[in-house]
Each structure stands twice: as C-alpha cells, then as structure tokens.
C-alpha cells in the first residue's frame, strides 16, 4: 500500500510528522478519509477527531477543536488550533481523554458536533 506524508501543526509546534497509510479527517462538510494520491483539496476542519492509520497498521487518534487541511498528492498538512493526541499508557490515556474532552467542549461549534466528537473520543478510549 502506498504511503503519504502527514503533518499536523498547532500553534505550539508540530505534533505529528510521519508517513502514514490513511487518515480520516473531520471536515466541515462531513468526515472524509484520505489515501495517498488524493487530488488537491483544501477544507475547513470542524471539532472532532483525526484518526491516523500508521504504517504498521495501528491507529492513533487526535482530538482537535478546529482548523484547516490541505491535501495534495504526496502530502497532507493539517493546521489546527488545538490538538490532544489520544495515545500512551492507561494513566496517560485517561489524562489525555480528559484533556481532549475539555478541548472539544471549549469550541464554539454546535452542541451536537461537540457531543458527537466527545462520544467518539470516549469510544476510542474504551477500545484502546
């Protein structure tokens, strides 16, 4: 399977920069997945969760509040305002989940969008 580059940038620096298989993004017009060789696209990102499928097949989730994404054939660049990665050990994860929920709730998005994102975060928390 072909790989592509993914970069996630926040005002606090680059939090993710690696080759990935696939990434699922919470676009403002609905969730969409990106594989390598995707045509050029710029989209607004809504409050939600970015799911990254890494080269070894494992999944990483990153909760974001809002941002933009620029996709082209080789590279996907996410520019987000705030992000919390949901990974690590149990204790870290619990903390990250809490942080993610606070982050999601702090946005101005509609309540349903926040609720959907929070439930998704909770779901990921359980499955990990």
């Amino acid at each position, binding site marked *: 399977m072909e790989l592509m580059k993914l970069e996630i*940038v926040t*005002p*606090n*620096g*680059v939090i993710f920069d690696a080759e990935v298989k696939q990434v699922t993004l919470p676009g403002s*017009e609905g969730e969409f997945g990106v594989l390598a060789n995707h045509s*050029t696209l710029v*989209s607004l990102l809504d409050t939600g969760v970015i799911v990254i499928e890494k080269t070894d097949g494992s999944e990483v989730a990153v909760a974001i509040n809002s941002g*933009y994404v620029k996709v082209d054939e080789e590279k996907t660049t996410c*520019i987000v305002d705030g992000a919390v990665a949901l990974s690590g050990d149990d204790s870290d994860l619990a903390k990250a989940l809490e942080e993610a929920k606070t982050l999601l709730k702090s946005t101005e998005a509609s309540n349903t969008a926040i609720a959907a994102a929070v439930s998704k975060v909770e779901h990921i928390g359980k499955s990990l």
Partner: protein
Amino acid sequence: MANLKEIKRKIGSVKNTQKTTNAMKLVSSAKLKRTEELAKRSRVYAAKLTELIEEIAQKMQQSNAEGIDNIYFKDIPNPKKVDIVFITADKGLCGGFNSQTIKRVRQHITDYKAQDVKVRLRAVGRKGIDFFKFNNLELTDEIIGLSAAPDFKQAAEFISEVAASYVNGETDKIILIHNGYVNMITQEIKEDHVLPVDTSKLELSSVSTSELEVEPDDDDTLLDALVKRYIEYTMYYSLIDSLAAEHSARMQAMDAATTNAKEMVKELNVKYNKARQEAITTELIEIISGMESMK
C-alpha cells in the same frame, strides 16, 4: 576630607547601579530564552498558514484572469486611508528598541502625508503611546499590557477590530510595524502588510497541477476563515517576535550599562586613591613644617 567622602559615596552608588543593571540583564536573558522557545514553536504554524494562504491566492489568480476579486486580496493601487499598527514595549531601558520603531512610524507618516494619504495610528505598548501622546499626535486605538504578555485571544480581538474597519471601507490598507528578533544581538524593524494580503511576492516552487477543490465549496467561507486566522496569527506572532526582540535589546543595553559602571568604578577608585594620597602628603608636610618651626 569632604572630597574623599564624596568620591566614596559616588563609588557606592555606581556599584549599586551596576548591581541593578546586572540583575536586569539576567532577568532579560532568562525571559528571552522562554520567549525564543515560544517564537520557535509558533513559527512553524505561522509558516504553514502563510504557505496555505499563498497557494490558495495563487490558484485563484490562475483561475481568474482579472485577478482576485475577494475583498481581502484586492489590491487598492492608490490607498487613500492607511492604518498603521505598531508594537512597542511597555517598559523602557532597552536601548534604541522603542525609538527605532517610533522613528519608522514617523517616517511613514511623513511619507504618506506627502502623498496626501490619511493615516490612522493604532498603538500597542505604553512607550509608543506615551511618545505620540506627548507629541499631540492622535491615536485611534491604544492597548497596554499586550506587548509584555502576548495573549492570542486579546491579540485576535484587537486585530479583528482593525480588520473590520478594512472590510467596511474605513481604511484601504493596514500595515503592521514592529521591531523583530533576529538573534541575540540584532533586532530588525519588520513591516507586514496585513491587509490586503500581499500577493505580489508569491513564489511557490512545488505547486501541484491538479485543480484545487475547496470545501465548503462556496469560496468565501473557507477563505474568510483562513484570512481571519492568518491576520490574527500574524498579529500574535509579531507580538511574540517583538517581545523576544525587546528582551534581547534590554539584555544588550543592560550589559553595556554594567560594563560602563565597572569602568566608572575603576576610574573613581583611581581618583579616590589619588585624593587620599594627596591628603596624606599635605598632612605630612604640615607636621614636618610644624616641627621645623619649633626647633
């Protein structure tokens, strides 16, 4: 010996000053480190955002032969009203840091006046505000405290107001001037054309050839959000950059002051010793001549 006492007192006072300047230098260097770190981290974000906006602008230019008709990008050839936003420090004692910025702003005012352009000033930082108030020049907007502790929310609020006056036609151009950080010993005045977004210096090496899709697909939603973000972040980043420069300038100034104080103490010490010796010699002569006369 009144003179001796006076010199001694002076030495003490210079030494005290030296202690203060040295402490200020240390404080500034610690703060600089922190601010530099902050600047480094936000630089990537700023760069990516700029890249994205430039790419979109370029695509728009390509697809539209007459140029871009979005209000944020429309270049107004002969601006009649210009807003200058400038950032200075809240505190002094940092060498020419503030005066350089003020000088540049004044130069702009003179230039624009010559072209019959109306200029409005928006000041961030106490030093700039004080200067223009003292010289009876009108400030449209002033904010204190933001340049000493950049806060994204506050910066965004401030610049949004400025941007709003651009959108409703009150002003044709917005310039942001601040004294930026280059390295530990150099600061440089930087000028950003906040609005309209400067499309003249677009240069992109690797532009993908496929057509750009935009979501949500009415152009303006995305572009408006992006431009808004871009302006806010430019403002925020300039504040951080300015703060880093302020600290480095203060560090330098205080370093120079400490060295000067050291030099002065040395000189005063020589003077003191000379005076002391002179006093002893005079006393000796008095004693000896007294003895001679008793013989």
